[in-house]
């Protein structure tokens, strides 16, 4: 796992929150919701394989 991933997730979080705020301010709440959802899906796309790898490692470690 690369440490850069943490910075990327943080940057995506900040950008998504700024974009959501701008869209909400301009009255486009549905677009703000879609942007938040897209950001969440993107971060899950990065994080889920790593979590899977973690569980596989734990299984191997305890020979489960």
């Amino acid at each position, binding site marked *: 796992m690369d440490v850069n991933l943490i910075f990327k997730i943080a*940057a*995506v979080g900040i*950008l998504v929150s700024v974009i959501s705020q*701008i869209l909400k301010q301009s009255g486009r709440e549905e677009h703000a919701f879609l942007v938040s959802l897209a950001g969440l899906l993107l971060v899950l796309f990065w994080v889920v394989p790593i979590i899977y790898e973690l569980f596989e490692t734990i299984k191997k470690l305890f020979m489960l």
Partner: protein
Amino acid sequence: MIKVAGLIIVIASSIFAGCVLGNNVKLRVEELIYVKKLFLMFRGEVEYKNAMLSDAFQAVALRAKVPYDKVFSELSNATEINCTEAMSTVFKREFEKNIAGNTYLNRDDIEKIKEIGDTLGYQNRTMQLSNIDLFVERLELLISDEQGKVNDTVKVYRTLSMMTGLFIAILLL
């Protein structure tokens, strides 16, 4: 180094796209003002010169810019020659053919302008002038609404485009 250059290009191009979209919003408002001016010209021809419809359309066509000159010219031809088609059909067809896609007007604007076509060619002078006045009034309301929103919309487009560029840059890192 190449990566950094690529990221800069991505961010710059998304900012440029945002600026272009913002500019299109301003140009749409100017286009609506121009359409209002054309119909005021037409109204003037009908009211003060007592011009026949074909002459009024021809007079506006001579002073209008591309592609509006084609629309009014076709309308003038349609009224002169013994055309079997209704004026409204010709108006809507010509507007759809020459204006949609060739100007900064969006679909809603074009549909609103096509509605005036339904009142052309079959009413007396007074009714015609009243209908043009009503159309111009509706256009003025639309223009004032859009002018109120244009600065905010341009800012939103520019900010969003910069954020989107940064977002894509982070994805590519």
